[in-house]
């Protein structure tokens, strides 16, 4: 197992302790999934977290998700390029590699932090690659977690 580039120093605001919510999610918008499959571990207030950090509350671990990655392109040139625009009469389903949205539920961790008076939290994202087959292009493995936007979403 090897860790690809970690994402550190991300700061998210937390809701005031008085905000009523039943569920808190970290939401990755515009997540790409054309590269290798990745286990993505999320830590709060643990800037040094890496692949060896325990997946426990005490270590700041708050959840994980998988990118079920395409592993590269297995077609001819342009086969996996997601079109930026569509013709008005293009009624085909969306391109299979259209970026997706992923939710990671972190309700308990947010409750603990807000109860302790925290106003924000730093987020560390640790991608773990495991035995990536040789036919997956190396350049896709260096930065396997790419997204457009990360938010915390609260539900009443």
């Amino acid at each position, binding site marked *: 197992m090897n860790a690809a580039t970690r994402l550190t120093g991300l700061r998210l605001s937390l809701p005031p302790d008085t905000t009523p919510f*039943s*569920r808190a999610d970290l939401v990755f918008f515009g997540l790409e*999934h054309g590269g*290798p*499959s*990745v*286990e993505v*571990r999320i830590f709060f207030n643990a800037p040094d977290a890496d692949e060896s950090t325990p*997946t426990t509350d005490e270590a700041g671990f708050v959840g*994980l*998700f*998988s*990118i*079920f*990655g*395409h*592993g590269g392109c*297995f077609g001819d040139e342009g086969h996996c390029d997601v079109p930026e625009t569509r013709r008005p009469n293009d009624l085909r*389903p*969306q391109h*299979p590699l*259209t970026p*997706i949205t*992923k*939710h990671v*539920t972190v309700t308990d961790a947010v409750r603990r932090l807000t109860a302790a008076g925290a106003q924000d939290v730093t987020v560390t994202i640790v991608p773990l690659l*495991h*035995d990536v*087959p*040789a*036919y*997956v292009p190396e350049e896709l493995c260096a930065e396997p977690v790419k997204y457009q936007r990360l938010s915390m979403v609260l*539900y009443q």
Partner: protein
Amino acid sequence: MQTNVDRMAAGGVALRKSIYQLTPDELAAYREAIAKLMARNDNKGYNFLAGVHGVPQQLCVHHQWHWLAWHRAYLYLFEQRLQDQVAGVTIPWWDWTSAATHTNGIPQAFADATTPDGSPNPLLKAPIHLLNPQPSWPTETHRSPRRPTSPLLPTSHDVDVKQGTLAIPFFDRDPTGFSESLAGYHDNLHNWVGGEMSMPPWSAYDPIFWSHHCMVDRIWYLWQIQFPNAVFDPALLSRPLVVPDTDFTVADTLDITRLGYGYALTELPIT
């Protein structure tokens, strides 16, 4: 013991069973059907069917609500092909939340190198035959499972297989929320098995794929029982599912009895 052939002859449905609970004869029949599909090179064979999901046809649907319906139709096609080879064979489901998996990893039925008669186990791996492959592409499947203690492996806390509900509450009654949550556990399992299973273009070539998705289908079925009044978007229900040799819409897949299978352990008539 009543067999699927008996049940189907009596007008009933064929039962899908846990891979851990197949009798030796049932496991042998499943392996025989898989091996016969693998021996075929036409559009009724294993490679063609795996290539519907992945390379070269790549018709699989993920990251949209109807991924569950698409895979139900896909498993239906695969199961019909199995029954064309050996009467009464159904796809066994792999309960990856079970204590057995969390202790021993991949079930022995898929991990054994050979069958009891000494022949290669067709559930261990599959060849990948393509017309115009690139030299770097895989020519057979392999696995690289992580430890059974890995947090990637969904637990019985994550997925309540008795109720068909997921640990993430709130969206349980909403088909879209349920579908997305289940997709997350589904993705984790693909990643946990590793190798070709971890990538959509190749995953269906691995013989364990069918039992993983049978488990996903079973959870969806249990959820359907739990929430029979769930409201679906009518536009979604009429959506066609592109799976060869079938012409299902999403609505056509909602009743598994119509598709000729069930997940009950047994049915005891009350007289």
